[in-house]
C-alpha cells in the first residue's frame, strides 16, 4: 500500500475514533454526527500530509514530530472556529497526529529516494 493512501486510511479511522470519544460528553450528543465527520476530515488531512512526508522522508522521529504538529495545528483551527474547548480539542488532536505520523512511517512502501536516503 502506498504511504499517502495509508495516511488517509489511518487518518480516517483514528479521526473517527477521536471524534467518537465526544460521546462521553452528554452535551455533544446532538451534534455527534458533525463532530465525527469533522474529526474524520481533520484526521484525513493530517494523514494525507504525513503520508506524503513519509513517502519523501523515512524517519520515524520526524514523522511523529510532523504528525503531532499537523494534528495540533488542525485541532487549533477547529477550536478557533468554536471559540471554546481549546484544550479538549487540541491535546487529543496533538497525540492523534503523532500516532498517524508514526503509522505512516511504519506502513506502506516508501519512495525509492527515501529508501536511498535511509
Amino acid at each position, binding site marked *: 500500500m502506498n504511504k499517502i493512501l495509508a495516511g488517509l486510511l489511518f487518518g480516517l479511522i483514528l479521526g473517527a475514533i477521536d471524534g467518537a*470519544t465526544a460521546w462521553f460528553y452528554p452535551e455533544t450528543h446532538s451534534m455527534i454526527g458533525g463532530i465525527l465527520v469533522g474529526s474524520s476530515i481533520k484526521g484525513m488531512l493530517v494523514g494525507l500530509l504525513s503520508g506524503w512526508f513519509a513517502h519523501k522522508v523515512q524517519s*520515524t522521529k520526524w514523522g*511523529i514530530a510532523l504528525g503531532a504538529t499537523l494534528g495540533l495545528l488542525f485541532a487549533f483551527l477547529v477550536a478557533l472556529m468554536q471559540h471554546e474547548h481549546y484544550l479538549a480539542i487540541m491535546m487529543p488532536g496533538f*497525540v492523534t497526529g503523532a500516532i498517524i505520523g508514526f503509522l505512516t512511517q511504519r506502513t506502506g512502501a516508501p519512495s525509492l529516494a527515501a529508501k536511498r536516503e535511509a
Partner: protein
Amino acid sequence: MDLNDAVIDHLRQVAALPDLTGTRYELESEIGRGGMGVVYAARDRQLDRRVALKVLDSALAGEAQLIAHLEHPAIVPIYETGVLPDGRAFYAMKLVAGARLDQHLAGAPSLGERLRVLRRVGEALAFAHARGVIHRDIKPQNVMVGEFGEVYLMDWGVEAVAGTPAFRAPDDRLSQLSDVYGLGALLRFMLPASAPPALRAIADKAMRADPAVRYPDAPRLLADIERFQEGLAVEAWSEPLWHRLRRFASRNAVLLWLLAAYAGVKFLLFFLRNL
C-alpha cells in the same frame, strides 16, 4: 661439541621447518597447526608483503584448489600454490591480522557483534555450499576476526578431515547438513550465559542428531537469526504466550506509548472537566 637435549630439540625444530628454496617466500614464524599441515607467517620477497603460508603434510594440494574457487569476502584469498623441494604442497594466502574467534570472544563482545560474526561465517558457508564445497571443520579456532571487523572462515577441509569432536555432527556421511550442525555448535559456543531462549533454540535445532530435522541449509538458519534480530518469532522455538506478548510490546513500544498518551490525555480531560 656436546649434543645435549636442547641442541637436539633445536635441530629437530630446524629440520621440521619447510625448505623454501626456489620459492619467492622467506620464512618468519609458525602461526598454527591444523589437521592437514602447518601455517607459517612468511615474506613474499617479490611483492615485499607478508603472507600466510600453509605447508601441507602431503602432496595433497586439493585444499588450495578448493579454496581458490571460492571468492568471497569471508574466505581468505589464495595467492599462489606450489610444491616444496621435499615434495610437500604449499599455498600462500592473505595473512589476516586479528584474533581467532575464541580470543575475540574473550573480550566479551555484545550479542549483536557475536551474531554479526556468526552471520558472516554462515554467509561464507552458504556461498561455498552453493558451489558444492563443504567446510567439514567449523570451530572457533577456524574463524578469524580482523582488526577492522572483517570475518574469515579458514581451514577449509579436504576429504581426510573429519572435524573437531565438540563441533562435529554425528553423521555417517559428511554433507552440507554436517556444516549446518557445525554452525549451530559455533552459535552455541558464541552465546553468552544470558542469551535469549530463542537463540538457544536456533542452535539446538541446527544441532539435532537427525540431519532431517535440522535446518535444511545455512541460509535458513541465518534467516531465523535475522528474524530474532528483527524482533519476530523464530522458526526453531514455539514461544510461550507471555513471551510473545513481551516481544510484541518491545517491537511496538513507540506505538503503545503513543496510545497510552492518548488514553492518558482523554482521562485527564474527562476528570478535569468533572472536578
